[in-house]
């Protein structure tokens, strides 16, 4: 296969993953903090002591880190504090044998690309968070990596800086083979050709962005994609959710097959008057969580975003009626095939 194919396992951190990305594509690795994303990226870059596994690029096994051609943009930037900005960016070209003048010229070009021309002589300690992240990006790319790994590239930046870096990354990743680790589903929508969802050191779902984001197969992946997974059995154009509830859907497999819809909480209504365009589900409130002007009400079956003014009606453990919209895209849900040895994915049994 043309592209990156990695198997990384490290028992001490409970990570065991097989993951690939084809040449020229961007894979967004979606997972909560602590799910092992950084560990996996370090393993692919070859800087994880004690890791076992194998990383192949275009079919050839990769050796030690310095010969891999796998660039890593780490969450902490890790700029060399004893070098100037220019020295940091010129480090990669120098390490690959370029003469000083040539390396400096390459570094200047990259600093210009990331919008930092004029800061060549600064020390990393004198940079803002956004500037430091840009220097780190320039440094990684100046080394001319064949694959670029970005670990939470927008974390820890204030809003304007993060937006600027997002635009820069979007531009620089075009045509590049890259993996972006993030806990923000926004990044998956913005950058991903492919999406992999990681949970507790395992990849639980992996596919094209549209597959994983709009047709997740596990409740966990659905949550990472900011959706709620409703599973049931197809019965003549409706999805039978159990408890006698039948939700009219579009598409889906033949009658009797297990299927699912992934609904966005914003599409779900709470309480309110009878509406023929909605199907009502009686549920109990599990959590109520503020999100800006809205509250996310999560029950056992569904979840909805409602106006904050309705906080008084919603008591944890108390009853809630969710109104589910009709005509959601239904898709067949068969037990996911095991992807790799050790890819211990507890098979998802459809809710009855």
């Amino acid at each position, binding site marked *: 296969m043309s592209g990156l194919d990695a198997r990384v396992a490290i028992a001490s951190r409970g990570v065991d993953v097989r993951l690939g990305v084809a040449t020229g594509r961007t894979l967004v690795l979606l997972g909560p903090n602590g799910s092992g994303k950084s560990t996996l990226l370090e393993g692919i870059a070859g800087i994880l002591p004690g890791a076992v596994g194998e990383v192949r690029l275009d079919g050839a096994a990769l050796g030690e880190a310095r010969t*891999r051609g*796998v*660039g*890593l943009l780490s969450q902490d930037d*890790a700029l*060399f504090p*004893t070098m100037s900005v220019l020295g940091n960016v010129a*480090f*990669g070209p120098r*390490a690959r044998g370029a003469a000083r003048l040539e390396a400096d010229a390459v570094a200047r070009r990259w600093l210009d690309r990331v919008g930092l021309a004029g800061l060549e002589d600064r020390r990393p300690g004198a940079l803002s968070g956004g500037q430091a992240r840009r220097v780190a990006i320039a440094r990684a790319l100046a080394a001319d990596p064949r694959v670029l790994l970005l670990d939470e590239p927008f974390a820890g930046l204030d809003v304007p800086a993060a937006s600027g870096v997002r635009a820069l990354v979007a531009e620089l990743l075009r045509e590049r083979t890259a993996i972006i680790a993030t806990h923000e589903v926004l990044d998956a929508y913005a950058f991903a050709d492919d999406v992999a969802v990681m949970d507790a050191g395992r990849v639980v779902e992996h596919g094209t962005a549209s597959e994983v984001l709009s047709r997740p197969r596990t409740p966990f992946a659905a949550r990472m994609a900011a959706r709620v997974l409703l599973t049931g059995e197809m019965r003549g154009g409706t999805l039978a959710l159990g408890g006698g509830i039948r939700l009219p859907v579009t598409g889906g497999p033949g009658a009797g097959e297990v299927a699912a819809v992934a609904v966005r909480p914003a599409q779900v209504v709470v309480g309110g008057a009878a509406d023929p365009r909605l199907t009502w589900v009686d549920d109990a409130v599990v959590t109520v969580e503020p999100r800006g002007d809205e509250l996310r009400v999560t029950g056992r079956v569904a979840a909805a975003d409602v106006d904050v003014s309705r906080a008084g009606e919603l008591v944890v453990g108390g009853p809630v009626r969710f109104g589910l919209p009709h005509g959601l895209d239904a898709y067949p849900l068969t037990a996911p095939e095991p992807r790799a040895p050790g890819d211990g994915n507890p098979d998802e049994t459809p809710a009855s």
Partner: protein
Amino acid sequence: MTGPRWLAPLAVLGGLLVLLPLVGLASRVPWEDFWSLVASDASLTALGLSLRTAAVATALVVALGVPLGFALHRLRGPVRGLVRAVVLAPLVLPPVVGGLALLYAFGRRGLLGEQLGGAIAFSTVAVVIAQTFVAMPFMVVSVESALDARSGRHEAMAATLGASRTRTLLAVTLPALGPALATGAVLAFARALGEFGATLTFAGSLAGVTRTAPLEIYLARETDPAAAAALSLVLVAVAIAVVALAYRPLRGSR
């Protein structure tokens, strides 16, 4: 942080214990003859020898002590404590014992006596070896603790950027260890400059060959106390300058 008041008189007492001897020394220096005493042939020869040997010893301490610090940093488990104790022993060993040990290793009848043909003991080379022996622990400790404080992130990053281990060491690790190296080198130089016991035992006291400033002071003490006091004051000045220099970078960076 402010301690209880009763610390103050004890602090004054401690300060006096350090200060009074220095004042006593200064009181014995015949100031009108100071320069002629310091500039006497014997004094200048001894000082020159001290500066030369201490400089070479410091270079050796850097060349050997830094790798030793790296090696110690790499060790794990109880072995590390044991190796550290052995490597740092010259720091706490009575210098005479150190000198004796050197004699039994490199002297005419020492372990390597036949191979070396007795060429080392009682030569300037012996002075440098004795000084390196006692001064190296400063560099080893300094490098080891500075390495322990590093996460290794920068070195890992350098590897992903394609750098060899040698380039990473020279361009990333050693510059970051700058303050620790400076401290280790300055303290090592000071210790080498003040070396007495091991030098006397292993190298003897041959004028112009092994008689460094401390040995010259010890000899002149009875024949020419004024010259001894003057030369002593020079070493005091060097010591104070060195300590002032050595502790500044540490305070600034951490």
